[in-house]
């Protein structure tokens, strides 16, 4: 433990700076919370960790059947299953992150009302734990690429950027929603619905050219559209619309910063109202 320091506890009003030092000093706890969330997630399930890939895999099968075979949606190059699955891996990570983190504070009431540590760890740890699923999903995409004999492009090295962008967007949304959920349980009902809608307004199951050109930049307001397009192109090749990627990245960063500060502002009342 660190040496003694003076601590003054007084009412905090208005916007507060982020206590980066405290967060850094408690990073070990963050690791333990992530580990905890990983360990307990699939406890008492038969499929266990297989659930991490079950969700995007089944979605891929269904979408391939309905959108590709029946509705005739074509991709801009790669085979449809590979196209859909690469998008779904990133989308599933985003969707699960938002829904898990938005319920994280309410699901950990005891932690909120009985012990102090940076509150921000609770939603972020639940997202961190999903990182493992993302990793497994990525490996599966690589496996599929080998199966389809689809060449790896050097742009694969850009993947961390898109993963980071997704992480920022999911964290931002998760922080705001988890904080709102403490006061308004409406969040619990609204989130699954909006996530479902989100799948259709992001280019997960259809390529970008299905959207009229004049609306494409507008899609940048959806942080996930740029991330998915960029992620997919860096994996499977194809020309990336950099304007869209940058717009989405900017949205992600703004969302993340907004999340940090809104959470920080609301956290002081968590214990009183949760």
């Amino acid at each position: 433990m660190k040496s003694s320091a003076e601590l003054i506890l007084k009412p905090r009003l208005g916007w507060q700076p982020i206590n980066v030092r405290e967060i850094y000093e408690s990073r070990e706890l963050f690791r333990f919370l992530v580990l905890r969330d990983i360990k307990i997630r699939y406890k008492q399930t038969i499929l266990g960790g297989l659930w991490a890939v079950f969700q995007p895999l089944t979605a891929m099968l269904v979408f391939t059947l309905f959108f590709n075979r029946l509705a005739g949606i074509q991709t801009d190059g790669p085979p449809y299953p590979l196209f859909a699955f690469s998008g779904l891996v990133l989308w599933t990570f985003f969707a699960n992150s938002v829904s898990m983190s938005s319920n994280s504070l309410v699901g950990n009431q005891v932690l909120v009302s009985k012990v102090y540590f940076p509150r921000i760890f609770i939603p972020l740890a639940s997202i961190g734990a999903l990182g493992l699923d993302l990793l497994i999903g990525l490996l599966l995409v690589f496996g599929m690429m080998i199966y389809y004999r689809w060449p790896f492009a050097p742009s694969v090295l850009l993947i961390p950027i898109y993963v980071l962008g997704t992480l920022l967007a999911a964290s931002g949304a998760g922080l705001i929603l988890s904080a709102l959920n403490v006061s308004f349980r409406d969040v619990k009902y609204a989130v699954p619905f909006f996530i479902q809608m989100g799948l259709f307004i992001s280019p997960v199951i259809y390529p970008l050219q299905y959207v009229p050109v004049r609306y494409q930049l507008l899609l940048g307001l959806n942080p996930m559209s740029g991330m998915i397009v960029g992620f997919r192109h860096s994996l499977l090749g194809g020309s990336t619309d950099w304007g869209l990627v940058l717009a989405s990245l900017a949205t992600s960063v703004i969302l993340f910063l907004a999340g940090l500060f809104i959470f920080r502002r609301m956290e002081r009342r968590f214990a009183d109202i949760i």
Partner: protein
Amino acid sequence: MAPVIEAHQLSKKYELGASRPSEDSLREVLMQNLRASWRTLRRGTSANLDASGSKWMWALRDLNFSIEPGDVVGIIGVNGAGKSTLLKILSRITDPTEGFVRLQGRVASLLEVGTGFHPDLTGRENIFLNGVMLGMTKAEVQSKFDEIVAFSELEKFLDTPVKHYSSGMYVRLGFAVAAHLDPEILIVDEVLAVGDMAFQKKCLGKMGQFGSSGRTILFVSHNIAAVLNLCEKGIVLQQGGISFQGDAKSAVNHYVGLVTGEDKKNVLHVADLWNARGRLAQYRPWLYKLELYNGDGKPLEGEIGVGSSIRVHVQFRLQEPSSNFDIRVNFVDLYGQVVFAARSSYERNRHWGERSGQQEIVCEIPNLPLTPAEYRVEAALVIDDKCVDYVEDACRLTIVGTDFYGTGKVPSLGFFVHEQSWHLK
């Protein structure tokens, strides 16, 4: 020396009703705001109603105190006096509304045994998680791991998920971790109210060592015996303010005076266990109601003579069919000692078979032989030897002096009265 804890005009305001999240939907808040603005338009806001139309109360009001390094201070007060609020502010769980506290040194606070324990994780995993959560580093937990395990006496169950632990084992593990913290200021809530007597003594011993090693302890408890054993100084809280501050013994005397005075006002023979306060987080409210009647079946309004018969009715719910359930009713004196423990499993003719759903059980106690004093009644529901619900302060019972021995002498000394005969040879 400079004080390690210094509170100045410390106040905390709570909005009443704000802690019921199930009703706190967005629509509700919007409606409330509408209603409030309507009210303001019509006649302005009234006292205790703020602009949003919700009522508020001061849980703490203008607290001033300072605690010197090495002090071991007991904080006592009846339910609702503001003890938990003070603890929550000192533990940084909630902010004060006004005033401030200055803390000098590393603080560890235990508002609950086994904070953050996850039922699905093993004892070993929980020791690490809990230790790090309470402020230890992983390396510290590692180096003290064997000691912690030895203290908990749970070597054999280290790799068992804690959901299979009995409540006693759970508490032992939680306290074992807590006992090995090394802060300069330790803040402890009534975590000692649970667990078996022997282990409680062990914990008190460990904390005593801690205190004598020059560190500062703030100890909040109903267990007056523990406060007297452990603390040198005492602070008595009453209705959000400090009503006494001084040495531990005088503080306890002051508190006992308060309790005896205050409880006469609001004793009822029916205690609502469902909404009881201070239920530990690991319990769900399966106990509904406790009623006290005297031997003739008349409602018992909190006062009864020495050696009178009483009946205790307990309503509870069995979530799943069970034949191995046990209702426990303890009578506890003001010093926190259980003086009489009644259990439905002590009944010889217990051929109830399997039950489920809502139940009511009646315990008849003929000639309750407790000496005149105030007693706190605890209720617990134990299923398959695992405590599933426990209400620490279900109701209060006052035993008043009577002519038990038929001699005109009213017994008052000791814990109980008993038939006796004397022969002069």
